[in-house]
């Protein structure tokens, strides 16, 4: 049973407020902390802070591997050193929502998109989940590297747009647009299907391939992948919709991207 309680707040840009019991600990991504109570002790830990049987070298290697999944080399550990419950809040680095997922319900493992991990209970490991099928890697919309979160307790991941979680029955298949997949339990088969009809492929706007998810298991979907949003904003900015203010839009977008990059760099 999870020993922390949490509340996700906000609408389209969310933060999660975690309440830690005395001696309770939580690990957060670098720079994700929004506010916290004063009796929390913060320490920087290498990687996800979990021990390795190969000692320091093992931890360093795992931290480096973790960097490939879009996370930083170090993360922060927040421990409640007081007698009273203490709060700490983590905010998303972008226009994102937060999903709180209890790994215990999934058998201890969760696969999620690159860079999705925000925070989690102490002991949760962030590993590389390497996509072995070339076609899924190239056309699945998630690339070859995803994150595998394993351990016990609650973990928080980021997603964009409106969210939908769905339980797939054994053998039940779901077709999703590439990029809309946020997370899936490891028992779900993640494959690529050809669109089949040339006309659909060319004019359907969905490309040549569909991602197909087959149960049993649970999947989490997002309505607006960041890339899709960025492309739309860029096209609006360049075409200058809105009374010839195109250049102003473009400047605003460049400023926005620049600031986001700064934010991502400091993450």
């Amino acid at each position: 049973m999870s020993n922390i309680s949490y509340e996700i707040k906000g609408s389209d840009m969310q933060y999660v407020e975690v309440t830690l019991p005395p001696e309770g600990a939580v690990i957060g991504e670098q720079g994700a902390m929004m506010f916290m109570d004063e009796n929390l002790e913060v320490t920087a830990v290498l990687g996800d802070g979990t021990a390795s049987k190969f000692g320091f070298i093992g931890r360093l290697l795992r931290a480096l591997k973790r960097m490939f999944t879009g996370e930083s080399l170090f993360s922060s550990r927040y421990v409640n050193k007081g007698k009273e419950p203490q709060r700490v809040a983590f905010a998303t680095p972008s226009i994102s929502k937060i999903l709180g997922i209890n790994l215990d319900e999934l058998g201890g493992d969760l696969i999620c998109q690159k860079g999705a991990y925000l925070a989690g209970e102490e002991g949760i490991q962030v590993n590389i989940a390497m996509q072995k099928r070339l076609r899924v890697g190239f056309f699945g919309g998630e690339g070859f590297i995803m994150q595998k979160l394993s351990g016990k307790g609650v973990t928080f991941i980021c997603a964009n747009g409106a969210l939908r979680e769905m339980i797939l029955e054994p053998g039940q298949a779901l077709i999703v647009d590439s990029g809309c997949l946020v997370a899936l339990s490891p028992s779900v088969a993640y494959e690529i299907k050809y669109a089949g009809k040339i006309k659909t492929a060319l004019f359907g706007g969905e490309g040549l391939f569909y991602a197909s998810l087959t149960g049993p298991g649970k999947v989490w979907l997002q309505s607006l992948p960041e890339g899709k949003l960025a492309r739309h904003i860029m096209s609006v900015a360049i075409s200058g919709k809105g009374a010839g203010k195109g250049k102003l839009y473009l400047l605003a977008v460049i400023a926005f991207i620049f600031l986001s990059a700064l934010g991502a760099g400091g993450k």
Partner: protein
Amino acid sequence: MVTFEGLLYGPNLPLAGEACTAHFSGTTLIVNSHSLVVNTADIEMKVGGFGHDNFYLNWKDSSAKGFSLKPVGRTDIKTVIQTAPQRLKSQFSQWHDRRLTIKTVWTTIISVTVFIVFAALFITWRHDDVIGWIANQVSVKNEEAIGQSVIAQMQENGDIVMEGLAIDTIKQIGDRLTEKSRYEYKWYVLLDDDVNAFALPGGFIVINSGLIQKATHANELAAVIAHEVQHVEQRHALKRAIKSIGWAAGLIIVLGDVNAATAIIFHQLGNMYFSRDIEDEADRLGYGLLFEKNINPEGLLSFFKKLQEENKSEIPEWFSSHPNTVERISTIQNMLDNQPCLACASLVYDWKKIQEDSAIKLLKE
């Protein structure tokens, strides 16, 4: 009856599946722990899991609720494959194929990457050997074509002598030195006061008239010829062209684009400095050639020494383009001391008369 362990997914079962034991009996699958009996005809096998390395036995019960059974470990998978009834077994080929494809694809990707990395390392490490190998891919015919067109360009500029006493002498000595060569050597004198000689790919040897005037004995001429012949035999000009212009040039030359290769080599003629290693090689092999043909090899040494002792502010080109002359003189001296050629004899020519050959006189003023 061999049982295997699995995870059972289905209605009212945990999301992450529930541990179970099962076995095949005749054409049915019996899940002992959950008291389920399934006709294998209803079972459809699907490759699954994020790693595409496991499979799921899917079926629907009488109320159309979906169930799924996943063998947990390697041994359980093996058990299923071995004990499943025949009609189910035929479905396993999908799983085998998928695994085989993934394995083949990644093995290929990794081997190609490793091969490219090692090839790059090898080429860097054995640079000279690789260049030599490329140069050796050029056919003698192509080499001759390259040399021929360079000579043709020089002839257009004039001043190439192809007949006369000097040419006859060079030809005599040269033919003796290149008796059994795969190349058909051609001999030229260039009317030029610089003391110089050079070799073109395919066996074209050009001696400057200035060098004939400077030499005092036919032995010295023979030594220079032997040295230049080794440049041809060892394909030094090609190797140098490949090295300096790059691998693209190597490809052009190997493929036999004579025009491009000619342009490169002709361009280099003006500043044709071979590296010390290459000159050493030509010296050493040239010495061996003289030795083999019983021509007194002291000519090379005496010619070198003479040039070095002369006016040092005006060092002749053939000499200056050969680096580390002092060292080379001592190397040649060593070869003379260590393996003196007892059977060797000096060449007998009326050297003065050769020098007086009107064909090689520069038309001054």
